[in-house]
């Protein structure tokens, strides 16, 4: 179960679209989704403008009580999660990450953690590898598209992933090489629909049992085959007769 889901932004991507997809996937329900984007892997050629766009959109998120529909993000689930997530933010900074949005938290009334974006995260470092399950996005710079795919696949998980690119060849390569159970092209990596996107992942993300798909009910049943020779005697008891 779980994931360390990545969105790759290629150098030819529509950057506004990509930033919107990354922020929505990273912070929807406070990042507490198995499908949440916790890594944005960005081609070096568009890295700086993308950081700016991601930070801008993240700053617009309103944190508060969700009974008020004006708030677009809220508290994390419990005290344990609050501590673990804050621990990962500290770890991210200690390992050389640069906080470009959020970073703060307030546990006074409820378990509030700001939507946090940490840039310059190195491939292989703790917050690039471990599932945080909270509103923390690690941004990693890739040399090129090859490097981005390599970083994306270098994980023990394999649940969701997305690629933003306008180049058909890059999208085709992702379909072949990006090793996840649910791959999205030029759209966010959360929000699987029942029947439309049967949902489940590879490796430590699960057994690839696809919830909301045609194979799912087989997990709850076993097939029994009965074979009867035609022509053998087969009597039906009269109604009311004891057998």
């Amino acid at each position: 179960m779980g994931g360390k889901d990545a969105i790759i932004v290629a150098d030819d991507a529509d950057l506004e679209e990509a930033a919107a997809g990354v922020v929505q996937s990273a912070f929807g329900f406070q990042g507490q989704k198995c499908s949440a984007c916790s890594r944005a892997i960005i081609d070096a050629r568009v890295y700086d403008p993308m950081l700016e766009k991601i930070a801008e959109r993240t700053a617009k998120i309103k944190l508060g009580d969700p009974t008020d529909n004006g708030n677009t993000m809220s508290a994390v689930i419990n005290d344990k999660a609050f501590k673990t997530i804050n621990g990962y933010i500290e770890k991210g900074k200690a390992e050389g990450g640069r906080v470009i949005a959020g970073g703060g938290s307030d546990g006074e009334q409820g378990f509030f953690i700001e939507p946090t974006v940490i840039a310059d995260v190195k491939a292989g470092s703790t917050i690039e590898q471990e599932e945080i399950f909270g509103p923390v996005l690690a941004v990693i710079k890739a040399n090129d598209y090859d490097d981005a795919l390599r970083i994306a696949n270098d994980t023990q998980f394999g649940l969701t992933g997305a690629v933003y690119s306008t180049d058909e060849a890059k999208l085709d390569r992702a379909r072949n090489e990006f090793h996840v159970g649910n791959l999205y092209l030029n759209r966010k990596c959360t929000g699987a629909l029942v029947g439309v996107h049967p949902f489940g992942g590879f490796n430590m993300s699960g057994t690839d049992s696809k919830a909301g798909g045609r194979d799912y009910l087989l997990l709850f049943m076993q097939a029994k085959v009965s074979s009867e020779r035609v022509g053998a005697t087969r009597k039906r008891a009269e109604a009311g007769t004891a057998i």
Partner: protein
Amino acid sequence: MPTEFRNEPLTDFSKEENAQAMRAALDKVKTQLGNEYPLVIGGKRIKTGATLDSINPVKHTELVGKFYKATKELANQAVETAYETFQTWRNVPAAERAELLFRVAALMRERKHEFSAWMIYEVAKTWPEADGDTAEAIDFLEFYGREMLRYASDQPLVKITGEQNHLDYIPLGVGAVIPPWNFPCAIMAGMTAAAIVTGNTVVLKPSSDAPAIAYKFFELLEEAGLPPGVVNFMQRTRGENATRATLGKACGRRDGRQGRNHCRG
């Protein structure tokens, strides 16, 4: 035959009538915060000596609900009850089991915003996130109901002369459903629905971070006519986080008999 499957549409809260409906649901659910909830085994409501609090993540002081915790004995009893009920439930025709899911889906659709409101208070989902969760729960009910009808229909086998062959999909037995808190309506309802529509019986132990929404779903199953004992509602065993072990152990004894357990979580 049911209509073709369609995903439940998401609610547009920029429309004032929809926002109004959600506010009304939030007000209604607010009056029910802090209620007590029993365990339910074979339809019987049971209270024990210990409770677990479900707290609103945005307000440490707001109690969403108080849940009686099971003991090991009660966990065993829940498994035994589910096993007894399996002997009849497995013989209920697949079409009837599917119909039950469709009735539950219809009821949930009528009270959609109430279900979302419970998640807004219990796990701090925003309106659209909660609405998506409820819509997904409805989708699972509608989808798995239709899937069961497909599996219950004649399955294609190669024909040979001199023999009549049939392939039937039969249930496994008693299942422990231990869903996570992050899609506390959708995943909880989806796993439970899949287990019962295929003819299994269930001990449902929701996440201790989201038991209220699960209890509301359980009530919906009862209202739709699910026989007692097909789904049994539990909270975790007292003192230790041993529900998994207890349920697993209790079920292990079934090896070799029809109805041996198959725990998933």
